[in-house]
């Protein structure tokens, strides 16, 4: 029979429903409760509503097709009906679609994911996940200001998870083992020049290299590393750690040319002439800021001191000298702490209060502990050099009322507080900015577009300059920022350069943030009662050397977490980000119907964690009853009172009949039912789905494994014979044994049974076995040897095993466990 769907004619089959007809026609009708091959829901979701001309709105899942019907699947009345249904569902939903910790991270790391992998002891996978977005984790794990940790919801229970310490742990684990395997695309034949081997340049080089491009980095200094290598003090980031991390990165086949300064040794035109198809400028921000204080030019430069210390050069500071450091940012605090280590008495002067200092509070506290004196709410007005000493005129400050527009509070010196203080040295450390003289470097450079203040202008989404093929990023463009921000910039550049080189037009994806539920953005929004269900566990602290000891040298101050501590710390993660994200039909429908995720801010239910494999969060239940209908065993009960009203009450329980097959989790269209084995949040399009066969019984069910970062994220049934999507508890949940730490990794050998086993080389084990088999065959004949094959290995392996018996040894003494 003929029907018309959205104005187009289709052939429908007698007896099928509108939903089935539309599905065959490839027309999507949303539904939450429809479950193939099962009876309809006791409380249908109603989302499959469509409009039939002359009949009005009908549910497509239960309405059989009729000859000549004209059906509209997305008309205004249909949309309106769906919107109303979705809004009631949304109003009852409570959860975090995505982990709050990764939202503020400039690098956009999947923090919950790598923390979960560390908790599982899968360090290589954790590192691989980190390196998808951050190729320098040992560096960032030491210097990151931790944008993430203040947003960690664990703070509502006790203290945030020590995210950065975990990153550092796993990064150091990787450094010790010589890195992890990465997948590299085949060579593209394209060449890219990167100017500057700081975090932004190295990051861009890494991701471009992985895409198969040939990458050369040109670096002004004698060694790669940029600011972290040449300025950040040794006690924060030891150069050995950085060197090893960069060596691993470069070992992918990235060329580094040192002693090459842009404008001195080459120009952009030279690079293009050399055959580079794209250039990324990431030369950092090394220019010192000025404050125009009279006599400022007599002071020493903090930046220069730090640089000379890292270079191993002499600086004029002596033990016991009185030093004034001016500033409150990273450079100021780093300089102060470095000078303390040279035995100087350091005072840090800053015109505002402690909490307004741009340096992280953690480092300010460390500086104080090491003996740096803070002189807050004070400003130097004039600096005079007096032979070997400095006279500094200082005034106390107050702050103005906030400016109505900018909210900024100006600094106002109090005139009657002026006093003169004497110091042996004055050091200025007001921070850095990008340099602007590059336009004089060459003829292409002169054509680069700049901002009114003279900074290089780039497109914010691609970091492209006005000259095709020339990109720029990192501090050079943004001014001084953190390492993780430079990394983010480098990765963005790599993506844009790759797209430029390969001629890929990037499709614009609409932001989906408004479809992300969250359990509250501000602390006062959050439901403390919900968090009361989690037991308190103290946060692990990495070892920190006592101030008295560490101020004597430039050795690293903070240590790395031990493996045990890291595992314990990773276990503290509350797993806020929804672990049903990849299977969530609900969110897909919200996006499709453009209904924003304005959910509840108060939880109604606590989590149900009693089941050995499945976690239940009724706060995310949409009442579709798919779980109940997917169960063949009466393994669960779901009762919903006052469904669809604000008074709705959900009662969910597993029964003693549950066989843990996990069909309900697959059927659940939200994160209300999730798997305890699947602890890494992911989205469907970022994993590889590989089909294989269950390693347990002889039914030979086909598995669909979701694989990423060298680990199996989860296993479901593949919709092919013999199992057609179904699995038992072992197939679905029993796969995890492959990563158990008990796995044997080295051959074990002993010459006689009285001895203990020794771990030996493969060569030694092969030799021993071959020799003994030959001896025995020689002495007693081939039939004195038997081979027992496995019922677990592949056909190919069993074939070789029996061939080993028959052709190599010369016996038919071969059998298999068919009798067990």
């Amino acid at each position: 029979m003929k029907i018309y769907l959205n104005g187009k004619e289709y052939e429908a089959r007698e007896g099928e429903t509108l939903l089935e007809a539309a599905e065959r026609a490839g027309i999507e009708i949303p539904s939450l409760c429809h479950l193939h091959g099962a009876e309809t829901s006791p409380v249908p979701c109603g989302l499959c509503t469509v409009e039939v001309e002359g009949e009005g709105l009908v549910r497509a899942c239960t309405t059989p097709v009729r000859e000549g019907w004209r059906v509209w699947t997305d008309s205004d009345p249909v949309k309106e009906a769906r919107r109303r249904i979705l809004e009631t569902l949304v109003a009852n939903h409570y959860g975090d679609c995505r982990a709050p910790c990764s939202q503020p991270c400039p690098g956009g790391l999947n923090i919950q994911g790598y923390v979960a992998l560390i908790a599982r002891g899968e360090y290589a996978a954790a590192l691989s996940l980190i390196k998808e977005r951050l190729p320098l984790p040992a560096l960032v794990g030491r210097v990151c200001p931790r944008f993430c940790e203040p947003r960690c919801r664990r703070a509502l229970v006790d203290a945030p998870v020590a995210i950065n310490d975990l990153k550092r742990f796993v990064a150091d684990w990787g450094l010790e083992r010589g890195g992890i395997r990465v997948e590299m695309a085949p060579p593209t034949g394209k060449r890219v020049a990167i100017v500057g081997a700081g975090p932004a340049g190295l990051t861009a080089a890494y991701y471009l290299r992985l895409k198969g491009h040939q990458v050369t980095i040109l670096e002004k200094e004698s060694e790669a590393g940029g600011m972290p290598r040449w300025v950040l003090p040794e006690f924060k980031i030891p150069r050995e750690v950085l060197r090893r991390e960069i060596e691993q990165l470069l070992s992918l086949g990235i060329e580094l040319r040192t002693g090459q300064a842009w404008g001195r040794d080459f120009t952009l035109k030279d690079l293009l002439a050399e055959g580079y198809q794209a250039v990324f400028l990431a030369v950092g921000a090394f220019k010192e800021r000025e404050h125009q204080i009279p006599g400022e030019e007599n002071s020493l430069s903090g930046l220069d001191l730090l640089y000379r210390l890292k270079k191993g050069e002499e600086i004029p500071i002596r033990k016991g000298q009185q030093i004034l450091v001016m500033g409150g940012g990273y450079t100021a605090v780093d300089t102060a702490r470095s000078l303390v280590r040279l035995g100087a008495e350091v005072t840090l002067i800053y015109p505002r209060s402690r909490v307004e200092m741009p340096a992280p509070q953690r480092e300010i506290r460390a500086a104080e502990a090491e003996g740096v004196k803070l002189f807050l709410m004070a400003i130097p007005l004039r600096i005079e050099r007096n032979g070997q000493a400095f006279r500094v005129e200082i005034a106390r400050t107050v702050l103005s009322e906030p400016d109505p527009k900018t909210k900024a509070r100006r600094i106002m010196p109090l005139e009657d507080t002026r006093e003169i203080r004497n110091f042996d040295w004055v050091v200025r450390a007001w921070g850095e900015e990008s340099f602007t003289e590059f336009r004089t470097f060459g003829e292409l450079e002169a054509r680069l577009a700049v901002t009114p203040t003279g900074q290089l202008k780039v497109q914010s989404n691609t970091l492209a300059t006005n000259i095709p093929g020339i990109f720029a990023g990192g501090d050079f463009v943004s001014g001084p920022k953190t390492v993780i921000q430079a990394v983010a910039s480098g990765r963005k550049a790599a993506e844009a350069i790759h797209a430029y080189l390969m001629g890929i037009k990037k499709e614009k994806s609409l932001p989906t943030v408004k479809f992300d539920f969250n359990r509250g953005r501000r602390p006062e929004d959050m439901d403390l009662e919900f968090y009361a269900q989690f037991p308190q566990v103290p946060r692990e602290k990495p070892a920190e050397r006592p101030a008295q000891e560490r101020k004597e040298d430039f050795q690293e101050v903070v240590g790395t977490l031990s493996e045990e501590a890291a595992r314990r710390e990773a276990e503290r993660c509350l797993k806020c980000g929804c672990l049903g994200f990849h299977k969530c039909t609900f969110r897909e429908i919200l996006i499709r119907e453009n209904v924003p995720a304005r959910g509840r801010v108060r939880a109604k239910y606590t989590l149900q964690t009693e089941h050995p494999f499945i976690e239940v969060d009724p706060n995310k239940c949409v009442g579709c009853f798919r779980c109940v209908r997917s169960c063949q065993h009466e393994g669960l009960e779901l009762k919903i009172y006052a469904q669809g009203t604000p008074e709705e009450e959900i009662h969910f329980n597993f029964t003693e009949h549950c066989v843990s097959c996990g069909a309900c989790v697959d059927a659940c269209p939200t994160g209300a039912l999730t798997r305890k084995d699947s602890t890494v949040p992911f989205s469907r399009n970022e994993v590889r789905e590989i089909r294989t066969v269950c390693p347990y019984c002889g039914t030979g069910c086909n598995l669909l494994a979701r694989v990423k970062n060298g680990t199996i994220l989860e296993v479901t049934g593949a919709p092919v014979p013999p199992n057609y999507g179904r699995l038992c508890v072992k197939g679905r949940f029993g796969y995890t044994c492959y990563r158990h730490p008990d796995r044997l990794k080295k051959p074990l050998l002993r010459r006689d049974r009285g001895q203990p086993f020794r771990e030996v080389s493969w060569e030694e084990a092969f030799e021993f076995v071959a020799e003994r088999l030959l001896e025995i065959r020689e002495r007693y004949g081939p039939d004195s040897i038997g081979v027992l094959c496995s019922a677990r290995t592949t056909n190919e392996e069993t074939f070789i095993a029996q061939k080993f018996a028959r052709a190599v040894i010369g016996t038919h003494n071969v059998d298999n466990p068919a009798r067990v």
Partner: protein
Amino acid sequence: MSYKIKDALSRGLKLVVVDPRKTELASLADLWLPLRPGSNVALANGIAHVILRDGLYREEFIRERTEDFEAYARYILTEWPLERVERITGIRKDYIEQVARLYARAERALIFWGLGVAEHRSGSYGVMALANLALLCGHVGRPGTGAMPLRGQNNVQGACDMGALPYVLPGYQKIEDPLVRKKFEEVWGRPLPQRSGLTEPRMYQEALSGNLRALYIVGYDVAQTHANLKMVHQALINLDLVVVHDIFFPKTGEFAHVVFPVACLFEKEGTTDNGERRVQRIRKLVDPPADLPSDWEILVEIAKRMGYSMSYRSPRDIFEEMRRLMPTFAGITYERLEEQGLCWPVPHEDHPGTGIMFEQNFATPTGKARFAIPRYWPPEEEPDEVYPFLLITGRRLFHYNCGSMTRRVEGLMELLPEELVEMNPRDARRLRLRERDQVRIVSRRGEIVARVHVTSRVPVGTLFMDFHFLDPLTNTITSAGMDVKVHTPEYKVAAVRLEKLS
């Protein structure tokens, strides 16, 4: 399998379950026959008796597709009167008559069996007795019919298909056939012995008598899973060389000289055959830890050092050799397996695979199926005054065979953390045992300690245990009995006694 059966039940399928224990499926069955352990042959012959006596068989099918019917019919009708069947099986004859009618009159009927049929002294005859039923009623070679063993391990089918048996070459080709031997000898470049080799149970006997000196074991934990373990352990100790491959240190490792670690099934490419003869692709999901080799790579290395070189670069190369040598696999390629598996035989590349066997002919020289005479042997030992309980061993849903994998999955250990002895409440009351009391279970071969689970799933006088755990090592006490034809140990019947531990 049970999911499929449950689906079919909801469509009105009739289900008969034969099992001494009231399994989950038994409680859903239309008819449950809790026969006495070890009496399968008697029951099947009893059913055959009814079919023959009442003329329920399909004459046309028997005439055209089978042979030796008369001898079989005579044997059944004279040797297996229902009174004898009742006495041996403990099943009332009207139930037997019901099952016979149900099976014979059904348009389509399937027989499935597990190791409860095979692991008895008359195990092979039990299988033949069931196959005879299918032949009698013509329930073979059509969709929805057949007689099918449910295979226990993921590639036990493949292991047999690949010729990991002492009496056949790959593809069940006969060792005695000189043409077959010649084909293999040409490809392998070595002469093959003309006589069959030893089955596994006979290897242990030869080891005990000093004729077998070395055992090379690829991924099979014999020291835990074989029956009558004390004998097996002694046999292993007697050997001059024991080499094992495994992913975790196995019980057999305790008797080994060399233990090779290997990649597991998620870490390599290849194929396996399921119980339907479906050849399916195994795909690599992740890298093995420490770059571990696959089992075949280890064997190739050792062979090389023994003066035999094999030059495979990948499992696909091995598969190509398999195709050349095995007519049943000739038409299978990795490419064809990409979408979904193929059921062998697949004689050529355009062949769609053989989902249903024996549609026209049987795999015999005449093309006709032969009725075998299924003889009955009682179990090796039966309960007596000293050992009054009958012990059945088997498997549980939450664990798998030697348990080396499932015992390393947290959730599964939560569901079933230990070995339990299932015991009927009446026995428990008589022995003053309560749930989870510790008992010592003693057989003529040894003793073990486990805790009791009181359940009416087992009949009075019967105990049930699995063998998924290292402690207790259940197979220490299982029977020394073996199938009279193919030497399968009699895991399903042992006489034991219980002692309560305070």
